[in-house]
Each structure stands twice: as structure tokens, then as C-alpha cells.
């Protein structure tokens, strides 16, 4: 073995320049990561600082007071948001999950490819145009803004995510589970529902939670479908209040009291979204851990 020539290994000026450049760009990338965290920190800080003082029992239970009177709460908006999310799940989950099952288990060939393609298309449609579509489809024919229209608009926002997540997760289920069930003589549909779907359930739950988190904060598709209301929900065929729309109305109002309530509303919304995201991560981590 030849002796190592130290002078060849020592860093020359060109090499030192390369290392300096590498350090420079590494630092640049680290700085861009830091820059991104500034607005996140600022938003969370403002929402907590300005919103926390308004948290009270009445905020969640009371109706808004008429213009000019201070006090009142967003009880109707919180309840309305729950109703709208419920309706969105009612309309959107069966379609979303079962279309995902179709793509992973049943469909093949051109039809499946076309459906996969349209799910992607739907995911890229701006949510405000979904609002316009549901307006033309439901509001015009019912001649009234309604909770049903709002729920439908939110369902359309949520369907593509749920479909694609379901499909991806079902494909991760090991084929030998399916084969074992079929080998025992279990009918194919029971295998799909009780073995395959059951195994993928935690992952699908994660996808659903993330979809709900997204839909909970959507304002644009509700503006001309569910509209807004200053009262408790009177029925599913009536306009209904929702947290995002109420925050929008109060945030853009000139009244300090309303703006304070909007900050509290924003705090609630951010908290809901945060909790759903963390829960989704926890579920995903646990099911991954179990699989190993």
C-alpha cells in the first residue's frame, strides 16, 4: 500500500471555496425555514393574545347582541359550524370513502382512471367556485340560502381528499390479509368491509380528520350557500350562522367589541384545526407503530 500523500489531501483554495459555498447555501436554506416560522408564530401569538381574554361561557352559549350593544357571543355560529360540518360529513363521507374503495378494490381500466382524474380536478377547484356552483344548483332551485346548501358545498370541498386518502391507504393493506379472508370463504364484499377497510380504518380516520379540519375553516363556499344568521338555526332549509363567516363579518366591522369577539372566534377556529391536526398525527403514528 502506497503511503498517503498528505499534501494531496490538504484542502486547496478551490476546495475551501467549495466548502464555504456549501456552508453559505446550507445557512440560506436554514434561514428560509426560519423565515417561514415567523408568520406562523405571529399569527398564533396575536390570536392567543387578543382572543384569550374573550373566552367565556357566554361566548359559546349566547346569541350576538344587536348592533350598538356590547356583549353577546357566537353560540349560534359555533352550533351552526357543527351542523354544517355534520352535514358535510353526512353528504361527503359515504361518497368520499366508498369512491376510494371503488378505486382501490373494485374499479379498473378507463372508468377508474377517469374517476381518479376527476377527483384530482375537483381537489384543484377554487372553493369559491364550488360556492357559485352550489348556489346555481341548490339555492336557486330552493329559492333560499340554506344549511343544506352550505353542507353540500363543504362536502364537495372534502370529497376529493377523502377519496384519494382512502384509496392510498387501502392499497397499503397487505394482500395476504385479503387472501386469508377470501381463502376462508368470506364473500369479497365482506372481506373488503370487515378486513381491508377495518385494517385501514385508523389511516382513513386521519384523512377524514384532516379534511374536517380544512372544511371547518372554509369561508368562501359558505358565503352564498349557508349565508349567515344572527339567530339559532331554525331548520336545515334556512340560512345558518357559521364560525368562519361570523369571524369575517365581525373582523371587517368598525366596532371594537365585535373585533374582539372575532379574535376569540379566530382563536377557537385555530384551536379546533390544531387539535384535529395533532389528533390526526397521533392516530397515524399509533397505527404505523402497530404495523411494525
Amino acid at each position, binding site marked *: 500500500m502506497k503511503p498517503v500523500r498528505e499534501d494531496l489531501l490538504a484542502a486547496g483554495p478551490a476546495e475551501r471555496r467549495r466548502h464555504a459555498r456549501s456552508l453559505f447555501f*446550507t445557512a*440560506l436554506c436554514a434561514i428560509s425555514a426560519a423565515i417561514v416560522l415567523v408568520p406562523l408564530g405571529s399569527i398564533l401569538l*396575536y390570536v392567543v393574545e387578543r382572543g384569550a381574554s374573550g373566552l367565556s361561557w357566554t361566548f359559546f352559549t349566547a346569541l350576538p347582541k344587536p348592533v350598538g350593544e356590547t356583549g353577546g357571543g357566537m353560540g349560534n355560529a359555533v352550533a351552526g359550524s357543527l351542523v354544517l360540518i355534520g352535514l358535510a360529513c353526512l353528504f361527503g363521507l359515504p361518497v368520499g370513502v366508498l369512491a376510494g374503495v371503488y378505486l382501490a378494490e373494485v374499479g*379498473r381500466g378507463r372508468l377508474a382512471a377517469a374517476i381518479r382524474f376527476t377527483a384530482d380536478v*375537483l381537489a*384543484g377547484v*377554487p372553493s369559491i367556485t364550488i360556492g357559485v356552483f352550489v348556489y346555481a344548483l341548490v339555492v336557486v332551485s330552493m329559492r333560499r340560502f340554506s344549511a343544506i346548501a352550505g353542507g353540500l358545498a363543504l362536502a364537495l370541498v372534502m370529497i376529493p381528499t377523502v377519496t384519494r386518502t382512502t384509496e392510498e391507504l387501502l392499497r397499503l393493506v397487505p394482500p395476504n390479509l385479503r387472501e386469508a379472508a377470501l381463502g376462508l370463504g368470506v364473500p369479497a364484499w365482506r372481506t373488503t368491509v370487515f378486513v381491508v377497510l377495518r385494517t385501514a380504518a385508523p389511516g382513513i380516520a386521519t384523512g377524514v380528520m384532516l379534511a374536517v379540519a380544512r372544511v371547518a375553516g372554509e369561508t368562501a363556499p359558505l358565503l352564498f350557500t349557508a349565508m349567515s344568521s344572527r339567530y339559532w338555526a331554525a331548520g336545515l332549509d334556512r340560512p345558518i350562522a357559521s364560525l368562519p363567516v361570523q369571524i369575517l363579518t365581525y373582523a371587517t366591522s368598525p366596532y371594537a367589541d365585535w373585533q374582539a369577539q372575532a379574535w376569540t372566534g379566530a382563536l377557537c377556529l385555530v384551536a379546533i384545526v390544531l387539535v384535529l391536526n395533532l389528533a390526526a398525527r397521533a392516530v397515524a403514528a399509533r397505527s404505523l407503530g402497530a404495523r411494525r
Partner: protein
Amino acid sequence: MSAAPAEALPHAAATTPSAPQRAPDRPRGRLGDRLFEGVTTALAIVVLLVPSAMLIELVGASRKAIGAFGASFLTSSTWDPVHGSFGALPFLWGTVVSSLLALALAVPVSIGVAIFLAELAPHRARGPLSFLVELLAAIPSVVYGFWGVFVLVPLLREHVEPWLAAHLGFLPLFQGPPLGFGMLAAGVVLAIMIVPTVSSIVREVLRAVPAAQREAAAGLGATPWDTIRFAVLPSARSGIVGAILLGLGRALGETMAVTMVIGNRPKVSVSLLDPATSMASVLANEFAEADSDLYLSALSEIALLLFGVALILNLLARWLVGATKGRVGSPA
């Protein structure tokens, strides 16, 4: 390592619709199975029909405006609901300029973040850091708008815009009084909102580049940056372009945050400091109040245009990302 197997698969599936390994799984004729297949197929077809229904509905709703204004709808900048004269140019302008501004601000940062998270950050920091970046995507649009009105707009009005006007005021881009509300505010808010979209897709694309390429470069004595620059980024290029287009698609359709900070003035102005408006904003502001058929139809045509542009961008982007991941991501 080539595109051949990826291309061969769908071809094979197309020529033999009942793949041989599936056939024995599915004994035909059982009622439950047929029912289950029927139900899932029907619901999947619902997904298939929605975008087409949307297109038909939007075209139908905007027929009156298309008939009345034709191509001048795209070039006229009068928006006068009282006299029934509608031109969408200010809205197209606002959407395009605010989105491009957002891209200009967000793309370098997003790529930096993605490279940092995929290649450079300490392993233990990657998970929590990427969660924080993704959290930005989860914050509702209306909260961004609210924060924009009370934090970003005053910051721009009192510090950034006077500085820009004083030092770069010779450019037509930075002329006019510092109002805070305007194109610049919209661009900045949009930039913040699309960073997570772009960076997470770029990160995915970078991850799809085979480790062997990095190892080969490192083995030749490349520094970490040289490895990224010469062994990773070239393979990821079209995927990165796709990520940028997806970010653009997201920016074009973004409604609430933009509406709250852009100033909502339907005028075409070159200056970024001036208030402007956008396609999504005019829908959010005026759709529920439109009182004549023609007005509603003009707004529907804007929705149709928005739908069309978003559609084309998304398809192009998905194709680019898919192509990159398929090419570099095949087992090495």
C-alpha cells in the same frame, strides 16, 4: 431505472381489462358482492360527474354575459353594475399580478425550506419542523385575512411601503401613497399561504430522487451543497416546476384572505402599492348582492374563468409532478 415499466403497466391493464390475478378473487353472481360493487361504482361515478356538472352549470349561468359582451369581457375594465356594463380585466389583472407576486416571494423560500427539510436539517428536527410548516397550510384563510388586516397591513403602511416608495419609487411598481391595503399586502399574504403547498411537494419530489445519486456525488468528494446542486436538483426539476404551478393554482383561487387585504378597487394599476381586486374577491363581495340577471351572469362568467384557469394549471402541475416521481422514483 427507466420509464419503460411505468408505461408498460397501464398499457397492459388496458388490453386485459380483467387482470388474471383478480379474476379468482371475485366469484361473480353473489348478490352481496354485486350490490357492493354497484353501490361503490355509483358513488364513484358521482365524483366523476361533479366537475362536469360544475362546468355545465357555470357555462349555463354565464351564457347571458358571454352573449352580451363576448371577448370584450376580457379586455374591458368598466365594471358598472348600475348601467349593466361589465368587463373583467381589473379582476383578471388583480388575480394574475397578486398570484405572480406571491410566487416571486414564496418560491425561493419554499425551495430553501424543502431542501433544508429533505436534505440538510438534523434528522431529529425534520419531523417537528415539517409539522410546523404544514400547520401554516392548516390555518383557515379567514384567520390569515384577519391577521393581515391588523398586523401585516399596518406593518406595510408604516414601514415597508414608505421605504419602498423612498428607495425604489423611481420604478412604476412602487409609486403612490402607502395605504397598506393593496396588491402588495395580497401578494405577501398569498405567499405565506402557498409556502407550505410548494415546499411539501418539492420535498416529496426531492425524496423520490434515489439515494444512490447522492452517495455517488458524495463519494466523489462533493460538498453537501454540490451534491444537492448537481446530483439531486437536476432530477427533480420538472417536479419542482409542477410544485410551483400547484402553488399558483392555490394562489389564484384563494378568496377570503385576499379579499380582506387587497383593497377591492376595480382598477388596473401597475403600482403594487395601489388597492386592487381579484376574481375570487369580486365573487365573495358581490355575488350575494347581484340584483340583475346580467350582473349575476357576469359574475358567473368570472367564476367560470377561474374554474378554467385553475383546472388547466392543476392538470399541468399534476402531470409534471407525476412524471418526475414516476421517472426518478422507480426502484433503484
